[in-house]
């Protein structure tokens, strides 16, 4: 019963989150560009409607099955990733003692979904987007796993409820502030945005999206936004104490914190420059990965001394 309730709330959460993300996606760039923001509320729906009624395109001998499956897989991964997020100690859509392992699997399969989307078109620009995303998606995922392990240490569990409960005294963002930054980078990477958008970038004329139109493109865009919402909720849970908070019910706190992370992610996606992929790959391995090791060690030492 509570599980059904959790699933319903979660679907609502996902829908509202996607709508909010779509609006932010117009409002924040407009803010940076110094253009009027007033159309940000209504424009996303009109744009989605326009995409929905445009016909789908086709290429010469594409991998049709893969092309259809890619956005479906991507969207499903976002929903599954979100389902392990607890709304309160007992209100979880998919109660799991190994929540972060499940989330990690969703991250890993995202690379597959994005690759499939670019591969299937049998066209050069999407293909390049597909291959280069793998180069960045894999090490970025590694980062996030070290960060998540750092969050699991004080909880002595891989379950997300326990991870939230372990933050009653102090949020994980205080224990590992750099961890939050690294996890936000992963968020940009799995939702293909800004400095980590190596699959759908401008210099490849939209990359994996270059050959899709109509409902096919709409479903891809929705899946990207869904993943963004999902990763925001996960960040809020692991670093910002999830449903913990005074007075208001748990899921309201979770929604508020997720919204905050969502704004931060969209802003970061619009604010920072993207390196060419070769430079980014070295940067990830040689700078960020050692940083995540250090972060993990710091949390370990802290627990041994004061834990």
């Amino acid at each position: 019963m509570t599980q059904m309730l959790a699933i319903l709330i979660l679907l609502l959460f996902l829908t509202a989150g996607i709508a909010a993300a779509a609006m932010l996606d117009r409002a924040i760039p407009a803010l940076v560009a110094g253009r009027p923001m007033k159309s940000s509320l209504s424009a996303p729906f009109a744009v989605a409607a326009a995409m929905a009624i445009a016909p789908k395109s086709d290429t010469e001998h594409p991998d049709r099955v893969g092309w259809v499956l890619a956005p479906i897989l991507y969207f499903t991964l976002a929903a599954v990733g979100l389902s392990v997020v607890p709304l309160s100690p007992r209100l979880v859509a998919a109660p799991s003692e190994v929540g972060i392992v499940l989330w990690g699997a969703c991250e890993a399969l995202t690379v597959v979904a994005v690759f499939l989307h670019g591969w299937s078109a049998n066209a050069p620009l999407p293909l390049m987007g597909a291959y280069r995303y793998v180069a960045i998606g894999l090490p970025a995922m590694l980062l996030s796993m070290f960060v998540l392990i750092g969050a699991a240490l004080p909880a002595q569990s891989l379950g997300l409820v326990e991870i939230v409960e372990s933050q009653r005294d102090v949020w994980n963002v205080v224990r590992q502030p750099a961890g939050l930054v690294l996890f936000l980078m992963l968020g940009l990477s799995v939702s293909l945005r800004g400095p980590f958008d190596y699959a759908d970038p401008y210099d490849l004329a939209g990359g994996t999206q270059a050959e899709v139109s109509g409902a096919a493109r709409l479903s891809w865009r929705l899946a990207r936004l869904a993943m963004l919402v999902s990763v925001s909720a996960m960040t809020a849970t692991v670093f910002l104490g999830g449903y913990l908070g005074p007075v208001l019910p748990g899921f309201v706190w979770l929604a508020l914190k997720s919204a905050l992370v969502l704004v931060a992610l969209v802003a970061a996606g619009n604010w920072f420059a993207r390196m060419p992929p070769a430079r980014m790959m070295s940067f990830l391995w040689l700078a960020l990965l050692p940083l995540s090791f250090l972060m993990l060690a710091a949390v370990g030492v802290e627990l041994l001394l004061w834990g």
Partner: protein
Amino acid sequence: MIVLVAATVAALVRSARSPFAAPITEPQKVPFLGGGAPTTHAWQRYHVRYYPMTLLFIAFEMEMMFMYPWAVVFVEEGGKAMMEMGMFLAILSVGILYGWREGVFRWQ
């Protein structure tokens, strides 16, 4: 259940039919190159530039598997666990340094 609902929603959106849908002709299918037409298939024996990196990645992926149970028992085991994982990570870090010297992270 969540998988089912999410997949159905996504599949419905993906398969929505446009009121303007019409049979797609051959010239409409030519891959987009900004005007030019390709002479060959795009699918090819693609030169993946980060191949050595993926091998190193597998090493770290395996390492993650040991880390999950380790994280659960860390507080109970205390210093011993810390030392063990410290050594493990140190060896892997040396691996990264070695890989860097060998140019694993170059787009080669």
